């Protein structure tokens, strides 16, 4: 069987041991690690994401596949850097906003973003707006992604754009929001760059925002 196909199957199964072994095999056989990532591991995570969206897979299955991919990446990443390839899809600072302790949705988005090649800095829960921005500056992030499940905490979301504007950082970071009471209308109202209804949409949105940013679109 084609090694790429085996990578896809092992990843969909969440077989960490096999995913790592296949990553080593890619290097041993002189195959292109970037191709293995793009057509193998990343493509498999798209399949896993679809299965999860249809609830044929559940969060533990998603976590198993993501863990398997992460372990394989540890094998492949140094070789990508040697080839001068890297940087991934972009860097995202993620967290549940101030006052809010809910994190299941945020954690799912994190897994899906990481599995799609984004570098994600997860600040956890109850994250003050200024902390999002400080971290985004520190890691030179592309996107700030905030989640809220409560109406009282959602009210902090407008402060992200407001503070960025105040600090003259408005054009440097894209903002995406999500969570229980958050809607597309709310996102537009507060000047966020996008809203993800679920983890799959969040990944698509992040890719779109990165495309816009790298394409030099100004707001």
């Amino acid at each position, binding site marked *: 069987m084609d090694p790429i196909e085996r990578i896809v199957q092992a990843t969909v199964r969440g077989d960490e041991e096999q995913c790592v072994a296949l990553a080593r095999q890619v290097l041993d056989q002189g195959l292109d690690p970037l191709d293995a990532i793009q057509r193998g591991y990343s493509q498999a995570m798209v399949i896993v994401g679809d299965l999860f*969206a249809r609830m044929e897979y559940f969060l533990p299955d998603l976590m198993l596949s993501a863990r398997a991919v992460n372990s394989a990446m540890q094998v492949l990443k140094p070789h990508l850097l040697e080839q001068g390839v890297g940087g991934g899809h972009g860097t995202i600072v993620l967290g549940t906003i101030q006052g809010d*302790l809910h994190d299941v949705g945020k954690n799912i988005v994190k897994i899906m973003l990481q599995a799609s090649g984004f570098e994600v800095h997860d600040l956890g829960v109850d994250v003050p707006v200024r902390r999002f921005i400080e971290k985004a500056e520190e890691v030179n992030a592309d996107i700030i992604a905030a989640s809220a499940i409560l109406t009282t905490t959602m009210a902090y979301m407008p402060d992200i754009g407001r503070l960025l504007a105040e600090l003259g950082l408005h054009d440097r970071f894209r903002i995406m929001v999500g969570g229980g009471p958050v809607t597309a209308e709310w996102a537009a109202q507060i000047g966020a760059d996008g809203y993800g209804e679920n983890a799959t949409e969040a990944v698509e949105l992040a890719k779109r925002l990165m495309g816009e940013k790298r394409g030099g679109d100004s707001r």
Partner: protein
Amino acid sequence: MITIWDAVGRSESGPYIKEEEFDWQVGLTARKMVEKYGICYDPEQVVPADDDLADRVYQASLDLFLEWGTYCRDTGRLVKFTRDEVEWALKHAPTTVTYGQGRDQAVMVYRGVEDPTPPFCMCTPVGQSVAEERFVAMVQSYAQEPLADTFSSAFSQTVHGRPIKSGTPQEVEAAIWNVIKLREAARAAGRPQIGIHNLVSNAERTDAILAAMQADLGALPNDGLAVAATAELKFDYERVKKAIFMRHSGHNKYGLYGTLMGGYSGGPEATALVQVAHHFLGLLVFEVQHHCGFPLHLMQSCNSTRNLLWVISVGTQALSRNTRLLVNIAPFTAAGPCTDMVVNEIVAIVAAATVSGADLDALAVARNKHPEYATGMEARIAAEAGHVVAWQGLGRGEVNEIVKQLLTEYEDKIAQAPLGKRFDECYDLARVQPTQEYLDLYEQAKARLSKLGLDYSLL
């Protein structure tokens, strides 16, 4: 004897574990228990009439809780209990709770499976967001429902024109305003001493809640407050602080548990186990008097799907058959007000919950997400369905057939459910009465439901 202070003590001395590992282990152990006890979801038995299945779900949930206990997010420590301690707490748990005073007093009592006692009806928009100027009218629309035993709050988008932010001075102001306005709505409904089961739902911090729960503002001594566990089987000190306060104040308190199907616990079987196990957490860590479950579909944010109806039914049966806890279910629908679909979803959830032994915390509509999309009519639909199912003495087999018929009407529309109409489109706001359009829609729906076997003439 075991008290809340044992839980607090163990939160400082129990085994340390990373939160991610706890999340993982709860899901893993739940699935292990599902296999051990041979628990299997059957989509044709949405409301199973299998006592042995319900008992196995209960035993598996108890085993899960005994193995992992619960997790304190403030200290990162496990808080575990012995079987004897859980059994002692269950034995001494309240079997009745009284809300309200005078002629508005109502008593929640233990309900068994297929119990002819009608469910206690807590009527509420479940914190649905609403404009400040419509807040009183919206909550009045729930308080005035004749079958409402208690009522509770919407979420005003602003208070005195200012948005409410958790942890700010405005949160304290908003919490106080909320209590004043809820009691004002009760008076406007002609039920001045009706119980309010969740007095402060627009504040997260304990200081704001404590500031608001004052008799002078309109709080009755036995009004209540929800104390929520976080997904899955976790708690934090902010919640325990509320529980400690109510231990002294005498207000009623109830647990809120929203297990996510598709989340850490996985599929319907393990979700049912985790949902049941939350009741042990509520009893032992928060010392609550009654327990409100709202298991949710991770993707659809509702519990009207076939598998969630099974979770609701089998979980409630497990508790009703093996304990005398006061178990409430909060329906969450995908569709919004003034739609045929919302009626079908409500009746399906309520029928499954009522025949299984639950009382009702009714209810969240339109996925509890869209501002202004909630009305007292949905609570009426829920309360009436619950009363009909109980008074008719329907059995689980009969309800299973009714629920399956209802599912054929809406199951394939859940992902694209209609949003329906806003509160101000469904009610005459001056009189706070539903529009003729909504009344007609419900009358026609009842005619259809009667053909399925629900006898609305009993009302």
